[in-house]
């Protein structure tokens, strides 16, 4: 049978969005931008502290009503060193590889915050490692998660 040519349609679909951060998101992002502070909230029922602050504590189905300021320090709870490129949604450019993606538990917080870690050697990473947020300089923060540049591995030893 003769092989017939099969065609493809190649398109770039651009779908712009302007998402409302909402009440809790605005509180957190404003604190990052204006004060280099990390803000969470506490559930009145189970007393869990959430970062980012949540609209609802899922297990209790109650709106956390107490704003809590968290330190910039915590522990690395989970991570992976990623070895393939990813198109940065912010710049449209390929993110340099490798990079480390981590889940961080800030001191005094019950939930985990996802962010980058500035250590890409798997041999030097382990769960429980102390980490600390590094903020973008004044004038460069705009009110988004990338206002935290990354978490750096601290010199102090974790417990």
């Amino acid at each position: 049978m003769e092989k017939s040519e099969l065609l493809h349609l190649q398109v770039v679909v651009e779908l712009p969005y302007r998402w409302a951060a909402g009440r809790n998101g605005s509180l957190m992002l404003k604190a990052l931008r204006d004060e280099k502070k990390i803000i969470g909230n506490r559930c009145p029922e189970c007393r869990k502290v959430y970062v980012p602050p949540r609209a609802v504590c899922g297990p209790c189905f109650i709106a956390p009503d107490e704003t809590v300021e968290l330190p910039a320090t915590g522990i690395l709870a989970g991570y992976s060193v990623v070895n393939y490129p990813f198109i940065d949604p912010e710049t449209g450019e390929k993110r340099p590889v490798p990079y480390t993606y981590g889940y961080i538990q800030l001191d005094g917080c019950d939930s985990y915050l996802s962010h980058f870690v500035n250590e890409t050697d798997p041999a030097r990473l382990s769960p429980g490692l102390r980490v600390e947020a590094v903020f973008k300089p004044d004038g460069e923060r705009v009110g988004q998660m990338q206002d935290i540049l990354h978490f750096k591995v601290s010199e102090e030893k974790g417990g």
Partner: protein
Amino acid sequence: MTDIAIVGAAQTGYRRRIDDANFSEMVYEVTSGALADAGLSIDDIDNFITVSNDFWDGRTISSMAVQDACGSSYQGGRNVSTVEGDGTFGLLYGMMRILSGAYKTTLVVVHCKGSEGNMRQITNGMFDYIYTRPLGIEATAAAAMQARCYMDRYGLTEEDFAHVSVKNRGNARLNPHAQLAAEMTIEDVMTSKMMAAPLKIHDLSPISDGAAAVILADRNTASKLGRKPVWIKGIAHCSEAHYLGDRDLAEAPALRDAAHRAYGMAGVENPFEEIDVVELYDAYSYMEPLWLEELGFCPRGKGGELTRLGATAFDGPVPVNPSGGVLSAHAVLVAGLARVIEATLQIRGEAGERQVEGPVELALAHGINGPCGQSHCVVILGE
């Protein structure tokens, strides 16, 4: 049929842009509101249906991202299932899950923000990506073709449609949830900006943000609650071809079929005589008379006359969209469930200033999804 009842309902105000609440915050607001309305707590809900659309939300699996907010992660998690379509489709699905015997109650919650994405691009995205979508058609251009087909078939005029906008935007003045409320004249509509002929800007529903929730319960549970249950007496969902070229746009056979089935379940023989109030999905002005014809409220081609003669007016024999309808607030997907909530409030006698005259024993609510009303859900609610 009196197997399943609506026992709680809540909706946000519909606004051009809701900035002080993200999706979760909106969903939590209406979920809490519906529970309070029902006099139930989250412990009483054993099944959840979340309704949303990924293109509108700008994220994949959008319906599974509001689980904390809708209460389905309560105490480690409950059964949750999702629908991508109109809120009325979620209602039907929720009802069927209770009828399966596995659940006593179901929360159905729907959210959408038209303000956060690009309506033209998103609705263009529903068309065939090889042959149709590259040519730029979107919801309003498609609707304009349907309006033109409908006019040409029966000799209707643009004025016929303008009457619908004047009526519904006028009704919206009584509804605090509505987004567009105005005392308008036929001339105001006729001289408004031409968008896609024959549709002018006042023939179009607005872009809106909002959320809505209802709580369904089986007969046993519903009868024990303090609040008067509003029974789902009949319900049906039908759909026709996706490709507009395969459809006769001056007709809506899927709606005709859905109405026939829902009326059969509810024992309705003459809708004009038996149904006290109608809330239907008028995303564009011409849709209201066209849908009324297919719902059997008048003969084909007479929907415009029905409106012009005042039969569908707030104080007419069959008030249609006393809330102001979708022309006055159009959070996509949410708008169908909003029709159900409006009909529920009318039956309870709790519609406030927009409560129609006389007892409301039987009400019709209607939702659509897809281009030019590809899919229709008809819900008959009653005491």
